[in-house]
């Protein structure tokens, strides 16, 4: 393995982190929106969300990606490998995030909500001030769990030509006929990425409990 090879894997790491972050940042609020739609029991829409979540949770990511990549151009939508990869990640993770958020919403004490209503807060304010801060704390472990799974599922994006950490390692192995060293580098790269995510979770949790203690 040469220095150029290590550089190629590091470039793969940039792709892995960028795609995962994009997927997480878009998928997180969409998941929340879907969960709220179901929680509020919006007629028809809540049903559609339920069906969407059921279908997406039952579809393997790689199948969904191949379907998007090869089928969308047939209905006139040109889609490149990167956009197809992001779309598939977002569609997939939003469905799982939706359920995590929804679990927190279902456990949210109704009396608090009613108390907020009785002091004249409108719905948007109630959600932002009373509901959201509490469900974020309840959902965080589940959400971070889903995020770390998303990071580790990115190697399947390679089927459409996205070169992530693992694909970069595979390419080097194919060129040198010696796959072990690149795979060791690849494995060593995933750990700090997921560790950074978990550290972020711990930091948010610590900050929240401090704020609570101060209150």
């Amino acid at each position, binding site marked *: 393995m040469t220095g150029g090879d290590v550089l190629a894997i590091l470039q793969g790491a940039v792709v892995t982190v960028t795609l995962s972050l994009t997927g997480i940042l878009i998928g997180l609020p969409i998941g929340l929106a879907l969960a709220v739609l179901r929680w509020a029991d919006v007629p028809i829409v809540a049903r*559609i969300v339920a*069906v969407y979540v*059921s*279908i997406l949770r039952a579809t393997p990511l790689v199948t969904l990606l*191949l379907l998007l990549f090869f*089928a969308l151009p047939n209905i006139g939508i040109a889609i490149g490998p990167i956009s197809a990869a992001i779309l598939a990640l977002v569609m997939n993770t939003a469905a799982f995030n939706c359920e995590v958020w929804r679990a927190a919403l279902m456990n949210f004490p109704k009396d608090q909500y009613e108390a907020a209503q009785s002091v004249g807060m409108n719905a948007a304010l109630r959600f932002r001030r009373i509901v959201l801060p509490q469900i974020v704390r309840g959902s965080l472990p589940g959400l971070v769990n889903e995020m770390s799974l998303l990071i580790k599922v990115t190697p399947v994006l390679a*089927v459409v030509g996205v070169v992530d950490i693992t694909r970069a390692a*595979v390419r080097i192995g194919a060129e040198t006929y010696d796959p072990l060293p690149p795979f060791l580098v690849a494995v060593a790269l995933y750990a700090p990425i997921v560790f950074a995510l978990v550290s972020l979770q711990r930091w948010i949790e610590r900050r929240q409990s401090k704020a609570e203690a101060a209150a």
Partner: protein
Amino acid sequence: MTTCSLVRLNSPSRRLALGLLAALFAMPALIGATRAAGLDEIKKRGLIVATEDDFRPFEFVKDGTPTGFDNELIEDMRKYAPFEIKQQILPWTGILAGVSTGKYDVAITAAIITKERKQSLDFTSPIADATHYYVKRKDDKSISSIKDLNGKTVGVQAGSALLARLPELGAMLEKEGGKLGKVVEYTSYPEAYQDLALGRVDYVVNTVINLQTLVAEKPAVFELGQPVSGKSFPAWAVAKGNTELLEFLNGFIAKEKENGRFAELQKKWFGQDFPNLPVAFEPEF
């Protein structure tokens, strides 16, 4: 609070659910409806070629740049073609499907010409001789000829022509009173070679060119065996019926053969040239 699963839906939403499911399953049917782009359209938007990334010596990536026999030909084609060439590099899995659905115009890789593939694809003139050979571990003394392969575990690439033509080897073994052993399928060859080195399979079947390159690189680990198939040729693949593009590509190959560049690249990447390649090949298998 809605507690909802597909089973418990009431009737209007069940209809909705079924409709959405039907739409999902109808999407693959739409795939068949595409038509390959003719040369006029390609001139406007450029030629989209798909190549592999781990198929040494035909196409592979070294220090982040694509190289190998096919990639050098693509460089030549950029000068030859009156239109732009856009290259997509991806694993084998999606390549032929991408060509037959029109996502890519041509697969510039070593796709072995088979009867089954000819139903959905058209092939250019062969680019090399790809008679199938087997490779074994150098220290494995139990294999020295074809008949020693009796009952041994073989590794091949899933969905490959080499897998499709294993029955030929089976017939050879049966003539000697033996039979084909367990077949292990891999998504690509690097994994198969690794498993061979580790002793999980006893031999791997691939084209003579790929195996010669492997053995030249790792002479202490692997050893080339004998041919296990009849004639076999790899070529580039376009969507079925895209004759305009096929003619263009065959014209390019003929020109490269004529000016000696083809033989030069074959010597560089395969260690030998193949001066007697047919212009067109009709596969038996």
